[in-house]
């Protein structure tokens, strides 16, 4: 056989072998192909290599180089195809519709979520968070807040006493007093925290519950500032279309006092079961700081004015997440808490 014949044979081998290898659909067919072309005994390329000796010394290197190139190409493709086939094997046995491996999902408590949102909105309006003790004297909880202990207003919430004049705060308002005692205006604070009232657990009451207090004191703060701040808060908290309504009310430590309603977050104000058909949800109490409160902390009520507001994050969480019973918040049922991840 001549040099030309061998080169032609190599060309054919390369083409046919590569086609065959590409066409091999199973590892067995691939092995068959390997034996057919590269097998020690029968392999067609092996046969060509054996015949290199028949060539002249001048011809041999050229054909040898070509044979080696073809052999390398076939080997490479065999390897690649083998890898393809083994990958394909894995793909065919795995059902990718099966669920993924996962980690436990953690969650903040829904009441924390509301507190965090309220504080974040208020922070964007210049408020910073402060704290106060949960056990208080009756002076901080009542007297300093213009609530004489023998006044019917002190009946508005039945209080847990710990001793003579020592109680669990029934609202977060004592933080107002402590903040004003420790600092001079301007004051712009928000104080979330636990409060306690002698209400046994029922669907809408808990003996320990969260409240968020806000206080602003400076020269020239007016009722219009209160309305504007609360309205801006409500829009940022509940959505830009939220409407706000102020109704006169009574708290001993603010005057004028107001209940604040927002347009129902569920029905948008058309009336539904959540808002009992009124279109409004009561979300906070608010008012201008009573001059008597300023007097109790040594502020000059002629110089300073201010406003305060308070809201219950558990109630807001009930409205926001559609939770019918406040007790669910305090049971720590994993199946409940996981819903807020």
């Amino acid at each position, binding site marked *: 056989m001549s040099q030309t014949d061998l080169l032609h044979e190599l060309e054919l081998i390369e083409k046919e072998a590569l086609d065959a290898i590409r066409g091999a659909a199973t590892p067995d067919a691939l092995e068959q192909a390997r034996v057919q072309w590269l097998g020690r005994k029968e392999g067609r390329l092996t046969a060509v290599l054996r015949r290199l000796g028949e060539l002249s010394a001048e011809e041999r290197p050229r054909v040898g180089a070509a044979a080696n190139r073809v052999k390398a190409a076939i080997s490479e493709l065999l390897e690649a195809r083998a890898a393809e086939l083994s990958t394909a094997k894995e793909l065919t046995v795995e059902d990718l519709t099966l669920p993924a491996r996962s980690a436990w*999902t953690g969650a*903040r408590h829904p009441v924390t979520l509301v507190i965090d949102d309220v504080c974040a909105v208020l922070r964007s309006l210049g408020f910073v968070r402060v704290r106060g003790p949960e056990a208080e004297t009756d002076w901080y909880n009542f007297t300093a807040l213009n609530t004489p202990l023998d*006044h*019917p207003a002190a009946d508005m919430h039945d209080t847990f006493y710990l001793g003579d004049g020592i109680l669990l705060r029934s609202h977060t308002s004592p933080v107002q007093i402590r903040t004003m005692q420790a600092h001079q205006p301007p004051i712009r604070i928000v104080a979330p925290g636990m409060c306690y009232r002698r209400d046994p657990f029922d669907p809408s009451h808990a003996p320990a519950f969260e409240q968020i207090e806000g206080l602003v004191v400076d020269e020239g703060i007016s009722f219009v500032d209160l309305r504007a701040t609360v309205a801006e808060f409500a829009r940022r908290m509940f959505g830009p279309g939220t409407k706000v309504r102020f109704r006169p009310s009574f708290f001993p430590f603010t005057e004028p006092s107001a209940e604040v309603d927002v347009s129902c977050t569920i029905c948008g104000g058309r009336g539904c079961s959540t808002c009992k058909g009124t279109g409004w949800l009561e979300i906070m109490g608010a008012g201008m700081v*009573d001059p008597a409160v300023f007097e109790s902390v040594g502020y000059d009520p002629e110089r300073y004015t201010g406003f305060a507001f308070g809201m219950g994050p558990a109630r807001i969480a009930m409205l926001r997440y559609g939770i019918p019973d406040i007790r669910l918040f305090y049971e720590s049922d994993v199946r409940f808490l996981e819903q807020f991840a």
Partner: protein
Amino acid sequence: MNISYQWLRDLAPGLEGTPEGIAARLAMYGAPVDAVAPLGAGLDDIVVARVEAVRKHPGADRLSLCEVDAGGGRLQVVCGAPNVRAGAYYPFAPVGAELPGGVRIKKAKIRGEVSEGMLCSERELGLGRDHSGILELHGTYTPGEPFRAAAGLDDVRLEIDVTPNRPDLLSHIGVARELAPGGVAGIRLGPVAGLEGPGLYEDVAFERVPREGRAGGVMVAIEDPRGCLRYIGAVIRGVKVGPSPAWLAARLRAVGLRPVNNVVDATNYVLYELGQPLHAFDLDRLAGPRVVARRAASGETIVTLDGQRRVLQEDMVVIGDAERAVAVAGVMGGEDSEVTESTRNIFLECALFEPKAIRRARRALGLSTDASVRYERGVDPDGLERAARRALALIVAVAGGTVEREGVDVYPEPRAPVVVPIRPERVTHVLGEPFDAAAVAGYLEPLGFRQVEASDGGLRFEVPGYRVYDVTREIDLIEEVARRHGYEAFPSELRPFRVGAVPEAPLSLLEDRLRTLLVARGLLESRTAAFAPEGEGDVALLLPLSSAESRLRRALVPGLLRRVEHNFARGVRHVRLFEIGTVFAPGATPQDLPVENTHLAVAVSGARTPPHWSGEAAPFDVWDLKALLTSVVGTLGLGADAVRPAQNGVAERPYLPGLSFEVFDADGKKIGHGGRVAPDAVDAPAWADPVWAFEVRLDPAMAAVSVPQFRALPAYPATERDIALLVPEDLPAARVEAVIRGAGGAYLEDAHPFDVFRGRAVPAGFRSIAFRLRFRAPDRTLRDDEADAATERVLRRLRDELGVERRA
């Protein structure tokens, strides 16, 4: 406070608007209406019937056969009520009628007798709870006339939520003042049926005396002028006590009261109309006859109208006769002197008591009444005489009798007028909108505030008696201006403000970071009440809700374990909770506030990852707990060495010895502990996995964040050496590691255990711990012999200092 729509319109004749419209206006004046309830709803089918004859049912002892005229001939009706009698009028549901509950009346045979309709009780009509008999209608009616109109039920009840500062709204006249067009000038006391004139009894003179006087021959005295501020008395002789006429009964029912008898009903009418409590005594049962307002004697007792014997205290005000207490002043009358069917002569009390005294008595006796509610909050001191004349007029109209001309008005210290100045510029300052004197007066005068001349030309108003309890200062008047201007009439545009001078609480920032950390680790935040049983707290509540809630907790973990149990009890196996909350310790003395600390606690049980089909996840173990604890401690700014095995393996409750940790702050003070919860400390079902928990105290100082400092990345490769060591069981791995690090030299970059092994080829009492040592020089590639020499040095020091040998 229940308000009758019709009654309101009688008092404010020009008042326009539907009940719903009026409710909406009241809400915007500060008296929200909880319910607008049409009375007699569902009673359209009910008529008035006259029972003509009653005989016994032949087949049943307790039933009667009644001959009934309901406007269309005689019907036979079977009735089970004991009070049915011939000649009386009753509400009647004819065949085909529907009752408020939805029951339709059918022609029926009861024990063999035909019944063509039903005579109804109060409860069957949804008018009250009484089901002891059928509802007898007093007065004269036309059989067949619609019951709703006949019973005065063409009315709507407004249930008003009155705030404690507004006792004036606990009456129809007070609500009318808020609403009447043109203000208080538009209020009229309506004439009452059967009575001529404006409805006030004029033919009596109340002589004003400071301490003691006479009314119709009765001596009346105030002995306790601090408790009883004013006492008006009058005598009516020859009354005929009986049921009230239909109109009066209807008015009382409209506000939710049960008619009692004409005299008592008349006083209740005035209470609801004018807000003035009154009490009628049976004059013939008053010893003396003498009436005195005095302090109770210690141990004195009285049987009140509700039949209860009550022991009085010295700080209570009572009304006494010549011998004994006949009423707890301002709270409730006594049974002995009660007006009954046999009463002929009446002594009428119209008094003013000091609010705090009434509040004390009400609290001590646990007895809240229509009278005490009003006296506690404040009754109009100027309204007594009018209320007395109104009540006398009503009593005479409905019960007959003659009023003695001689009345008395014991008034030890007539009150001084309350005059409050108000500066329009201050109104503008506080409210943020301009108000001038005319605008201020325009809002205040219709409410009854009277402008008075002031020598300095300032604006001043005299406060009407019914508002003296809540309006005493300028700010109170400013609130009235804002309220009547309408809160919604104020703009709400955001104006510039100054930032505050108060810094953010560091603990709040720290809590944020801890929540973020633990939520990322898959934990769920728990919130529990701070109450604990006696064994779990040192600060006691004086009046706890239950013994399980009698203390304030000293730690969070016990409460969190109850939450784990709660989940176990509901079949939840994988529980992973954390809580950040307050714990309490007693103050230094009982006069000091308890000491509060903020703690963080974790409790976990179940699989460390969610179950997956590829294989079962292992339960949480001690290394998971240590990992959580270490990452929390890291967030607190403390190093890994802050977490140490409990001393000598002795565990604090509720942890198991040998599997518990202690946590120390930078000063070496213990701030927490954790570990495997002892099985007897948690009530777990058989399928539950071990429970792990820890708790640490947070300190505001821990919120300080240390800023990481950059270290240059290594430029040369590292060389590693592994050494397996035989370490006695009682020698902590941490000590071995410390010696390695100490002996490793300048190029030892890291040393950490990567395998712990017991068993084959390891002698008893030992374990094999394999450490991987990584060496690196910062400025060149380290030679092998340098790493070998350092490793040899480490092994030598381990042998010398700890007696630890390399495993063969």
